C-alpha cells in the first residue's frame, strides 16, 4: 500500500503546477477560451516540448511510457488552472484507443505524430439518442468494396474544431444497442461527407456535432477488430473518467482554498464570516467532500489496470462521488462568496461550469450509480 508519489512523479507534478501557475492565470485563461480555437496552439507546442503529449504512449512510438498516475497528476493540475485544451480528447481518450486497439502499422503512423503535437484527434461516441450507453450506436458502417461507408450523427464531440482526424464508433452489425457489432474508424475531418457544426461548451471549451453522410473510409482506417470495439470503448471511457475525476479534484481544491480564504477575510457584523459556526460547518462539509473524492480518484486510477469488473465499479464509484461533490463544493463556494460568487469576473462560477461539464461527461450520477450496481460485488480492497 502506497498512497504517495515517487520522486519522478513529484518532479513532474511540480513542473505541471509551475506551467499552470506561470502561464495560466485566470485572466489569460479567459482570453484563451474567447479565441476562435478555444485553446492556445503555442501551449500545445509547449506541451509537446515538455513531453506531456507523449506521456501515456510506449517508448517505441515516441512515447514516455507513463502510467495512469502520471495522467492523473497532469489532469489535477489542469483542473486547478481550468486549463482549456484538447489534451483529454486527443491524448488521454483517442490516444488510449490507438494505443490499445490499433495495429503495429497504424501505431507507427499515428502515435509519434500525436506525441510530437503535429496530429490531434478526438473521439466521437455520443449520439442524440444514445445518452450515456456506449454500445447504443445508430451510426452505421457498411462495407463498400475494400472499405466502408459511414452514415450517422455524432454529438458533443470535444475539440473537434482542432482535430485533424476523428475516431468514430459505428455499427457494422447487430441491433442499435448490441455491444457486439460496434467498430471504430478513423475519419479525416476534411473527408467528403463530413460536416461539423462547431460550438463552445458551457465551460468555455469547444465541441461539435458531426454529420457523416456517406463518408468513405479505407479498410486501413478500421481501428481494432471489426465488430469488437465495445470493450475497448468502455475501457477508454474509464480512462477518461479517471482523468476527468482527477481534473475535478484539482478544480474542487481551488474552490475550497478560495472560499476558505474568502471567509477568513470577509467581515460582516464586525467579524469574519469564518467565525460563524453555521459557515464553519459547511466549510468542513466541503473539505470532507474534497478528501473523499481525492481518495476515490486514487482508487479509480490504480484500478484502471486491474480486472474489468474492478476497473468499472471503481471508475463508476469515483464518477458518482465526484459528480455529487462537484455540485456540493461548487454550490457552497458560490453561496459563501455571496453576490461576488455570482459574478463573471470571479473564477468561482467558471469552476462550477467545468465541474458541471465533468459530471455529464462519460455518464452522470444516475448512469454510474446503475453501472456500479451492475459491476460491483461486495467490495473489498
Amino acid at each position: 500500500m502506497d498512497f504517495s508519489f515517487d520522486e519522478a512523479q513529484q518532479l513532474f507534478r511540480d513542473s505541471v503546477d509551475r506551467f499552470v501557475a506561470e502561464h495560466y492565470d485566470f485572466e489569460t485563461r479567459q482570453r484563451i477560451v474567447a479565441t476562435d480555437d478555444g485553446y492556445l496552439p503555442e501551449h500545445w507546442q509547449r506541451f509537446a516540448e515538455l513531453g506531456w503529449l507523449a506521456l501515456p504512449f510506449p517508448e517505441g512510438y515516441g512515447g514516455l511510457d507513463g502510467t495512469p498516475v502520471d495522467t492523473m497528476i497532469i489532469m489535477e493540475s489542469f483542473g486547478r488552472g481550468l486549463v482549456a485544451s484538447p489534451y483529454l480528447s486527443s491524448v488521454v481518450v483517442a490516444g488510449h484507443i490507438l494505443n490499445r486497439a490499433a495495429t503495429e502499422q497504424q501505431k507507427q503512423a499515428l502515435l509519434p505524430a500525436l506525441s510530437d503535437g503535429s496530429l490531434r484527434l478526438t473521439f466521437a461516441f455520443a449520439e442524440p439518442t444514445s445518452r450515456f450507453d456506449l454500445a447504443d450506436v445508430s451510426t452505421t458502417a457498411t462495407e463498400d468494396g475494400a472499405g466502408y461507408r459511414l452514415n450517422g450523427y455524432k454529438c458533443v464531440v470535444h475539440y473537434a474544431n482542432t482535430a485533424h482526424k476523428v475516431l468514430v464508433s459505428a455499427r457494422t452489425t447487430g441491433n442499435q444497442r448490441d455491444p457486439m457489432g460496434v467498430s471504430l474508424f478513423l475519419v479525416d475531418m476534411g473527408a467528403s461527407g463530413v460536416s461539423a457544426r462547431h460550438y463552445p461548451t458551457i465551460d468555455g471549451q469547444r465541441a461539435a456535432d458531426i454529420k457523416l453522410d456517406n463518408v468513405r473510409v479505407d479498410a486501413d482506417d478500421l481501428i481494432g477488430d471489426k465488430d469488437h470495439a465495445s470493450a475497448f470503448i468502455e475501457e477508454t471511457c474509464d480512462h477518461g473518467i479517471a482523468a476527468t475525476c482527477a481534473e475535478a479534484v484539482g478544480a474542487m481544491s481551488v474552490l475550497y482554498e478560495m472560499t476558505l480564504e474568502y471567509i477568513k477575510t470577509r467581515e460582516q457584523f464586525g467579524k469574519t464570516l469564518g467565525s460563524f459556526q453555521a459557515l464553519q460547518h459547511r466549510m468542513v462539509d466541503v473539505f470532507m467532500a474534497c478528501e473523499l473524492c481525492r481518495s476515490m480518484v486514487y482508487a479509480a486510477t490504480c484500478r484502471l489496470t486491474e480486472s474489468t469488473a474492478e476497473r468499472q465499479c471503481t471508475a463508476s464509484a469515483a464518477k458518482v462521488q465526484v459528480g455529487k461533490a462537484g455540485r456540493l463544493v461548487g454550490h457552497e463556494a458560490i453561496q459563501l462568496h455571496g453576490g461576488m460568487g455570482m459574478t463573471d469576473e470571479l473564477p468561482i462560477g467558471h469552476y462550477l461550469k467545468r465541474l458541471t461539464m465533468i459530471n455529464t461527461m462519460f455518464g452522470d450520477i444516475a448512469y454510474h450509480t446503475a453501472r456500479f450496481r451492475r459491476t460491483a460485488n461486495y467490495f473489498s480492497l
Partner: protein
Amino acid sequence: MDIAFSKDVQAFRQEVRAFIRTHLPDDIKHRVERGEELDREGHMGWHRKLCQKGWTVPNWPTEYGGPGWSLAQQYVFHDELAFNCAPRLPWYGWDMIGPLLIEYGSDWQRQRFLPPIASGEEWWCQGFSEPNSGSDLASLQCKAVLDGEHYVVNGSKIWITAAHVSDWMFALVRTDSSGKKQQGITLLFIDMRSPGLSRRPIITFDGGHEIDQCYFQDVRVPIENRVGEEGKGWSYAKYLLSVERIGTADVARSGTMLRRLKTIVASERAQGKPLLEDPWFADQIALLEIELKALEVTELRYLFETEAGSDLGPEASILKIRGTEIQQRITELIVDALGYYACPDLRPALWQDANIPAVGPDYAMLASASYFNLRKLSIFSGSNEIQKNIVAKAVLGL
C-alpha cells in the same frame, strides 16, 4: 502509488480470518450479526480464545504484551473481526488505557492495570461527561480534594457506557477551580466497587441498558491511581483523542451491515419480485456503498500517511463523521426494507427463558431497535458537530 495491501498483510489477513472462523462460537456470531448486546460472559467466551492467541491488545508493543503489529495489520485485524461478525474488543481498555499508561503511567500502574486488560479480567468505563458538561467537557465539576494519601471525590458522571459491567472507571475530575477551565482537571482511576459510588441505569429509548449515571459521595481514591500529574488531565484526554484510532470510521462494521441489508432486500418481496429490483432501494444501497468505498480508501490513505510518519491529525474527525452517518443510514434503510415486520417489538422474545415465540423473519427481530440505538453514534465520542468544530479550527484554521 498502489492502493492494495502488501502480500504480507494479505497473508496476515488470511491467518486472522482462518483463526476467527475456526474459533468464533456460532451463537456469538449470530448474536453479533443480529445486533444483540452481549453480556460480559458472552464476550469472555471469545475473549479467552483471542487472549491465548495474544491478540486482545492489537495496538500495544510487545514489551507490554501486545503482538507488535504494524498499523496495517491492526487495521486488517479489526476489519476481519467485523467482517466475520466477531464481537468488538471490550471498550476503553486496549484502545485508551493501554496507550495512556504506556505514555504517561507509572511503572506500578502499568504492572497493575495492563495485564488484566489483555486477559479480559478487568473491564473499563469512561467517566467524562457530566449532567452539565456534555459537549463543553472542560466545564466539568465533579470534584476531587486531596486528603492525605487519597483523593476524595464528590459529584456525578453520566452517559457511561458499560459502567454496570466495568471494574474500573477512568474519570476526569476537577482538582482546582481557580484558573482556566481546562486547567485544574485531573485523571483518576476509580474502583467501581468503591464505597460511596452508586449507579443508576439509564434506559435508552430503544429499550437497551448500555449506559449509566454514577454518583460519587466521598469516594476515596488512592493517590497512586492518579495518572501523571495533578491538573494535567485535560492534556491526557487530548492525547487520547489524538492516539491513532484504527478503525474510527468502522468501515468493516458498516460493510457487514450493508451485507445484511442486501440479504434482506434479496429476501423481501414487493410487487411479486425481490425488493432489490426496486429501483429506489437499489439506488439507495448503491449510493451508500459508494460512500462507504470512498470512506474506506480515505481511511487507508490516512493510515498510510501515518505509517509513513506524518501525524494523523484532526483530519481523523471526518472519518468519525462520515462513518457514523453511513451506519445510521444503513439502519434506516433496513427498517424501510422490512416494511410491516419492522413494527413488532420482539425484544421480549430475546429475554432468557422467556419462551415467547417471535414473528416474522429472524433478520427483522432487532432491526428497529438497532436503528433507534444507533442514533447515539453521531452523539457519543464527541458529537459530529464537535468533530466539525475540531476540523474547522485545527485543519481549516477558522
